[in-house]
């Protein structure tokens, strides 16, 4: 785990900075809201790229790439690879399946609640056996979980668990990275920034070029 986290830090920062750079050059963000959205987008993309190829990273990139406002930023970051990646990741059929399943969930929940109400009215909870209740509760919770994790709706059981585990670890790492970034920028904004020599900025600027 430690090795992957080390890779993740550098890759994350590189991607995050690239994302910020691209979104700044594309549109001079007028409002703080726009800048916040571009930061969030860059952070999520950076997290997905830093992790590599898993189910949830694919789903996340697909989800982000389908929103109109994100497309130009994504194109800027990925360059030539944009077309290839979007073609590979996006699959409209998958989302249709998900929509159909969502309808199923609502009707299931309704019948479950109706059943509980009926048994409560009759004054006895014995109608629904405890194992069934436990399983229903578990199903309900896992459905919530599936909605939280990108691409989770399509997974079951242990694969869902391993995806959740992976996603939680990456989220935690993302939060930690952003916290340290914030601390760094906070410190710099209070200190005298003119001390940075111009030549070092030029050197660091070349660092931002997207490289495989």
């Amino acid at each position, binding site marked *: 785990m430690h090795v992957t986290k080390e890779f993740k*830090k*550098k890759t994350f*920062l590189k991607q995050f*900075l690239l994302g*910020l*750079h691209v979104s*700044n050059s594309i549109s001079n*963000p007028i409002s*703080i809201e726009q*800048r*916040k959205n571009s*930061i*969030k987008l860059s*952070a999520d993309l950076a997290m997905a790229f830093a992790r590599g190829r898993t189910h949830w990273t694919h789903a996340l990139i697909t989800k982000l790439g389908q929103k109109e406002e994100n497309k130009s930023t994504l194109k800027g970051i990925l360059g030539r690879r944009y077309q290839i990646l979007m073609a590979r990741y996006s699959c409209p059929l998958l989302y249709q399946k998900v929509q159909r399943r969502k309808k199923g969930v609502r009707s299931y929940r309704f019948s479950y609640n109706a059943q509980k109400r009926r048994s409560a009215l009759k004054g006895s909870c014995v109608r629904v056996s405890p194992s069934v209740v*436990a399983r229903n*509760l*578990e199903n309900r*919770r*896992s459905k*919530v*979980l599936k909605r*939280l*994790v990108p691409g989770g709706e399509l997974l*079951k*059981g*242990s694969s869902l*668990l*391993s995806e*959740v*585990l992976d*996603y*939680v*670890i990456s*989220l*935690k790492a*993302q*939060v930690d990275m*952003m*916290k*340290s*970034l*914030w*601390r*760094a*920028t*906070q*410190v*710099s*904004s209070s200190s005298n*920034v003119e001390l*940075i020599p111009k030549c*070092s*900025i030029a050197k*660091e*600027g070349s*660092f*931002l070029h997207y490289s495989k």
Partner: protein
Amino acid sequence: MTTSRSSITEAEINELISKLHALLPEARRRGTHRASAAKLLKETCSYIKSLHREVDDLSDRLSYLISSMDVTTSQAEIIRSLLR
């Protein structure tokens, strides 16, 4: 549950569950087998939600900070933190 799908053993599922359990912010860690599956799932859901909120909050703060300073200098600072 269909048995044909469970090519992964029970032991591996238990391992995943215990790993997840170890990750969650342990305000109350009393014994390894205390957490039922439903409770674990519930705690995981709330943890993920709180992480999302943190990311939101951090990007808010970063946007205020970055907008108040020149972009090149902020990038320089970020790279400095990378090299630390």
